């Protein structure tokens, strides 16, 4: 059995689902951010697998797409962690269950 694109796609799907579960169920805001990072990595892995095994026309554009995703993920983490710091400064907690200021 050779390692083909199915193996990488299955691995990416598994990683995405673990990240999804972490982002959904963690109490801590930084834990939620870790889950989002895992999901973005799973998508990147899927794109790179298509870049290697797909047709020759998409080989370069998928890799450029991955570079853009990494840049946007870095911006997202910077802003998310700054928001966590501001929430901590005002409410002394970063638990997503206890920051309920906007609850109706």
């Amino acid at each position, binding site marked *: 059995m050779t390692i083909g694109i199915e193996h990488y796609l299955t691995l990416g799907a598994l990683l995405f689902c673990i*990240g999804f579960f972490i982002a959904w169920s963690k109490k801590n805001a*930084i834990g939620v951010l870790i889950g989002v990072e895992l999901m973005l990595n799973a998508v990147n892995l899927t794109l790179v697998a298509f870049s290697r095994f797909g047709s020759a026309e998409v080989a370069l554009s998928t890799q450029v797409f991955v570079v853009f995703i990494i840049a*946007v993920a870095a911006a997202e983490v910077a802003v998310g962690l700054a928001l966590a710091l501001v929430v901590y400064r005002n409410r002394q907690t970063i638990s997503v269950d206890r920051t309920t200021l906007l609850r109706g």
Partner: protein
Amino acid sequence: MSDFGFHLAFWSLGAMTIGGASMILISRNLIHAVIWLVMSMLGVAGLYLTLSADFIAVVQVLIYVGAISVLMLFAIMLTPRAERDNSQNIKTAGPAGLVVLMVMIATMWVAIDTDWGAVREAALTEQARLIGESLIKHYILPFEIGAVLLTAALVGAIALARQDDEDAAIHAASLQAELEGEGAVDPVDVVDPPIAADASDSEASS
């Protein structure tokens, strides 16, 4: 690459990635979770190498392993009185698990069941040059927008995380008072130097 070596690399790196991600789910300490995230990211970087995407692998190590994990550790250290625990919310874990299970079955079904066509044998070579060229030729507008986005996000992050001067002075004063074992003091008392000089003078004369 020999077939056996390729198999070994794929399965061990895949186990590293999935194992690291699962340990984030299990571990109770948030700092341990970030360390496991680093391990998972390193596994993904190795998988990029097995897909012969060397430029992306290097970028992954530089940005995820180097920058983002350090940023997360600093954020954890700067929120000292917040909860360190990394546990799940019991109320949402049940429905989340159900939905995630359904998503997992659907995506894996698609990944395994679809006929992906013939495998292309030749991998892309000279990726750094090709990616750089296409970034400033074909993708120049997204490249510029990405630059503006990164600048705006970092300036916004600094503006959010920065303390005002007044806040910082009060914070420093209360910290000083805590260290000296006194109650809350007016920040002016701490900052004002003549009082301290007088006190030391009086101590010296007596």
